[in-house]
Structures are given as C-alpha cells and as structure tokens.
C-alpha cells in the first residue's frame, strides 16, 4: 500500500477529527448518561427513590431517542445544534447529535449494570441505617464499577462507529474519509488504511477497557 503525502495528510486530519468528536462526546455522555442511568434504576418500583411517573417519563424519552436512526437524528436536531454550537456543520456541530444519541445508550447500559447489583446488598445497607444517597454512591456505584467500565468501553466503540456518519453534515473523521474517498472515489488504498486504523483504535479501546474491568473486578 503506497499512500501519497496528501493522502497521509488527510488520514492524519481525519484521525484527529475522530479523536476530537469521540473524546468530547465520551466525556459528555458519561457525565449525563450515568446520572440518567442511576435515575432509571432508583426511581423503579421498590427502589430507594421509587417514583413510577418519573421512571415512566424517563423511560419513554430514552426509548424515543433510541428509536430514531442516527443519520435522521442528526438532521432532526439541527435547530438545537444551531442553538448550542452556532452552526450545524463541522465536527463540533456533530458532537451535539452524537452526545444526544450516545447518552441515552449509556443510560440504558448503566441501568442494566446497576440492576446487576444484588438487591440483598442494598437491603443490608438499608438495615444498617444508610441514607439513600449513601446507598447510591457507596453501594450501588462501587459495586457496579466493573460493569460501568465495560459499558463505557462499549459506548466509546459505538461512538467511533456513529462518528462515521458525521460526514453527512461535514463532521469529517475516519469513517467519513473511508466513505468519500474509499467508497465513492474508488480509492481502495484509503479505504484499507482507514479501516485498519479504525480496527486498531477499537482494539486499543477495548483492551484498555478490559484491563480496567479486570483491575476493578473483585467477584
């Protein structure tokens, strides 16, 4: 495979754009998605902050958001993107739909991690007189930590995939490069280069995630 200097330059730019979109989105997703996931769990019936209506509304919003295919979602939230970023085009603009789509995904993953924590452990904490907040932050979250790290890994990998669709609004990135040059212009070498890069990045993310899970896991 022989890439020209120009092609290498495009690859470098695209890699940086992907890195930018995915890392900012990951931070936002974790900041919003995990708290939302916690709410989805603790407002369940019989849980520490049981509230059927809050739970139903949150569940509905999450499901609705997840139902929309991502390319449509990008277009659908354009008014919001313009309001937040000032423009609906470019890598920064893509962060808005990317975050919105990813944090509900993260919320559901968080929810399932927290539900894995045996109810008996929560009851034990209750029987010791622990407050609701202490149960969430000192029991639920620490006990679910390995699962949460795994969920974050899955989210990051999914985000790398989603960011490929960012090209639709000029977001750039590796996926966009592969589609525009590799697919539409038959530049097979570019396609191969991006695919190999993406595979390497995903492998790296997954193995970092896995080693963190091993580090935190005590079961």
């Amino acid at each position, binding site marked *: 495979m022989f890439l020209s200097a120009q092609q290498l330059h495009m690859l470098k730019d695209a890699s940086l754009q992907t890195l930018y979109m995915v890392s900012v989105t990951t931070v936002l997703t974790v900041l919003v998605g995990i708290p939302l996931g916690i709410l989805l769990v603790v407002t369940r019936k019989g849980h520490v902050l049981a509230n059927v209506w809050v739970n139903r509304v949150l569940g509905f919003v999450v499901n609705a958001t997840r139902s929309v295919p991502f390319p449509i979602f990008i277009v659908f939230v354009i008014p919001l993107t313009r309001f937040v970023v000032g423009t609906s085009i470019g890598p920064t603009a893509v962060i808005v739909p990317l975050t919105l789509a990813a944090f509900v995904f993260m919320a559901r993953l968080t929810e399932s991690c927290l539900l894995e924590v*045996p109810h*008996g*452990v929560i*009851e*034990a*904490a*209750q*029987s*010791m*007189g*622990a*407050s609701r907040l*202490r149960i969430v932050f*000192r*029991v639920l979250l*620490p*006990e679910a*930590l390995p699962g949460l790290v795994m969920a974050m890994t899955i989210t990051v990998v999914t985000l790398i995939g989603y960011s490929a669709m960012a090209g639709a609004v000029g977001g750039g990135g590796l996926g966009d490069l592969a589609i525009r040059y590799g697919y539409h212009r038959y530049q097979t070498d570019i396609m191969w280069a991006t695919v190999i890069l993406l595979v390497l990045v995903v492998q790296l993310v997954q193995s970092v995630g896995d080693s963190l899970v091993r580090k*935190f896991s*005590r*079961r």
Partner: protein
Amino acid sequence: MAFVQVSNLTKVFGKGKEASAVLNGIDLSVEKGEIFGVVGLSGVGKSTLVRCLNRLETPDSGSIVIGGRDILSLSEKELRLARRDMGMIFQSFNLLSGRTAFANVAFPLEVAGMSKKGIRTRVSELLEMVGLSGKAGSYPAQLSGGQKQRVGIARALANDPEILLCDEATSALDPQTTSGVLELLADIQKRLGLTVIMITHEMKVVTETCDRVAVMDEGRIVEEGPVTEVFLDPKSPVTKSFVEVILKRNSRFLENGYKPGGRLVRLRFLGDSVSSPFVSDLVYRFDVEPVILQAHVDHIKDTPFGTLLMDMRGHAENVSNALESLRAQKVLTEVLN
C-alpha cells in the same frame, strides 16, 4: 413489657385475586437477652416477619415495639437511627463485593459517622471477635461461606446493637460450618447480653442455640414456648414433623412390622432424669424386661434430653406399676399399642 413486642401483625402480598396473606395476625414477645427462634417451612412468612422488625418490609397493620420504640410510627430519619441499634445478618451474607472484609465491617461505622481512627480500632476488635483478624484484607470472593457470615456478624455488631436479627443466617452453610457459626453467635450473645431473633427452617439451629421458639405455619404462630417444652411435647402437626426430623422418631421397627411382646412405650425425659438409672429400675424393681428399640440422648442448648422406644415385656400389672413410677419421675410416657 417485653423488649420486643409484636401485636396482631398482618401483611398481604399482591392485590385482588392474587392477594395472599403472608402474616396473619402475629403476636410475639421476646425478652431482653434471650435467643428467640422462629421456625417454619419455607414460605410461611417467617422471613417477612423478621424483615418487618426493621421495616425492610412494611406490614399492613399491627404494631411493633422494640426497646420502647414504636417502629412503625418512626419517620424515615428516626428509622435510620433506630436501625443502627438493630444488627441483621442474611442467608446470602450480602457483603459488598468491592470491599475487603475490613472495609465491609467499616461500612456501618462510616454510616454512623465514626472517625477514621475510631473505625480502625473498632474494626480490628470486631474482626478479632469473630476470629478473622488474619483476613482483614481479603475480598468476599476470597472467603469461604463461614468466613463471609463471620464478616456479616462483625458488620451487624459494629454499632453495638441491642438486638440481632438473623434471617436464615446458616441456611447456606454446610453442617460443620453451621455449628461453628452458631457457637460463635451463642458465645457473642452471652458476652454482650444481646437479644437475638433467629429465623430458620432447621430445627437443629433452634435446639442448639435458642431459649424459646415460635413455630410458624401459614402466616400464624401455631406453637410457642421454651425450646425444651416445645421440643419434648410438640402439640401441632407442624411442630411434630420438625421434632421428628431431629429425633428420627418414625421408627423403622414399626414400619417393618415389628411384633411387640409387651407394651410398646416411648419415653421422653429431660435434664437430671437423663442420668437416673430408670431402665435398670424396670428390671430390678418391677420385674419388667425392656427391649430397647431406639434410643437418643442429646442436648437442647445446655439441657440434656433423651428419648427411648422400648418394648416392655412382663406381667401386665408389673408393667403398669413401672409406667406409674416413670411418670412420677417426670418421664413423659406414651403407650403406642
């Protein structure tokens, strides 16, 4: 008033057609410093009962007073404080898997707002008390079942509770480990003067450790009293079936068509009469020939007891005199033919 006073407690699970009463008007009183057993088959409501005591479960009606505190009228904040005076241990131990034994025992102390230094001293004391000083840094996954329950006990006792609730605390353990954990509980109870309520489906747990026992069936208490009395003279069918498990009372001799040559008699005796030579009395004083078919001598907590199934052969009058004399020695006699 007793230390724990439960009156007319009811709880229904489910609604409408599927509703089933789990607690059907429970009255219970437990004195300070005693080990009180609640025994019953699974699904009769005994776990629900003990979980109502610290309001992990909210009963539908009735009252619970523990140490002068009306548990059901406490506000949420008052309940949290009250719970610190009630330790609880569980069948599945319910330890935090991400914390070491040390940090698990430290948890309730953190809840109570103890200083880091205070926690260190107290946790070391507690781990030593349950014989796990060497395991402070181990995670639950590295401990055996018995060790996990010992951590559970240390954790439950961390804030010096007045009462310890045990919900099937030994049911997940093998017999040897069960005995070890029960010995530890009995020892700690004696030293600290704890009040212990022990839920179990194993009669062995009751006879080894409890002072008094209540037998539950279908959401009601069907029999209650000192373990020795309930055990030696069970009244209800449920209690009888529990006692039979321990005594293996259903003698094979009868099932296999043994033909008694005289009166077939079952004797039950307790305490000092265990050491009285009444069998030889039968021979020398009453000229009765006893054929012993089954015998069992054991302890209920610290009280020795025994049962004996014998075929008393001899002159009818001699046999009835002998039985008369046994009854006078406070041996329970039951003629089976």
